[in-house]
């Protein structure tokens, strides 16, 4: 069974600073997918970034990047030049490889990130 652990319940930084959110996971699968989702007060889960485990290169999406350490089973999210709109709950999630359509997501407990003006 897959498990995902986020050890930082809350984080707070000043606007424009860089912040890193931590995530570790455990899986017996050889190939899998990792995700970071953002959940603002509107409650909708929004995909921030995703990483395929078989790809060595770390994924990047504009100000968001990940540090994927497969051997250590670590998947941290770095937010550069943080903005007030980045304030939200952030969830790390994993998913086994796709067979037909999408598979289930296993989520961590979340990190509440606050960006202060």
């Amino acid at each position: 069974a897959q498990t995902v652990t986020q050890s930082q319940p809350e984080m707070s930084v000043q606007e424009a600073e860089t912040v890193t959110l931590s995530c570790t996971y455990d899986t017996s699968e050889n190939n899998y997918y990792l995700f970071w989702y953002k959940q603002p007060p509107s409650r909708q889960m929004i995909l921030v970034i995703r990483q395929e485990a078989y790809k060595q290169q770390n994924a990047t999406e504009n100000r968001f990047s990940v540090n994927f350490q497969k051997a250590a089973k670590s998947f941290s999210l770095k937010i550069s030049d943080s903005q007030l709109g980045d304030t939200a709950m952030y969830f790390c999630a994993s998913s086994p490889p796709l067979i037909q359509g999408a598979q289930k997501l296993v989520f961590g407990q979340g990190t509440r990130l606050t960006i202060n003006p």
Partner: protein
Amino acid sequence: DAGVTQSPTHLIKTRGQQVTLRCSPKSGHDTVSWYQQALGQGPQFIFQYYEEEERQRGNFPDRFSGHQFPNYSSELNVNALLLGDSALYLCASSGGQGVGGYTFGSGTRLTVV
């Protein structure tokens, strides 16, 4: 292009009652998954529907059941409600071989009193 639509947005039920939550997937998506998110927790997978059949199920009792219709919309039914069923219920749709192509709705907040 409409995203995932869930109804109702909020619901209050009494312990022992039954509830039905509804989800319309994003246009072009044929797979619907349901998640339960307790307050302050990450979402937990309930089950997934594809081609009108339950394809995967998480660790939830049989009180939780679902259905998918020919137009891909879905319902989540919970019988004999318990206080512990109070949570945000999220629907996520996906389609084809889209990796990480989950689109979530804004959820239904269920309160059991």
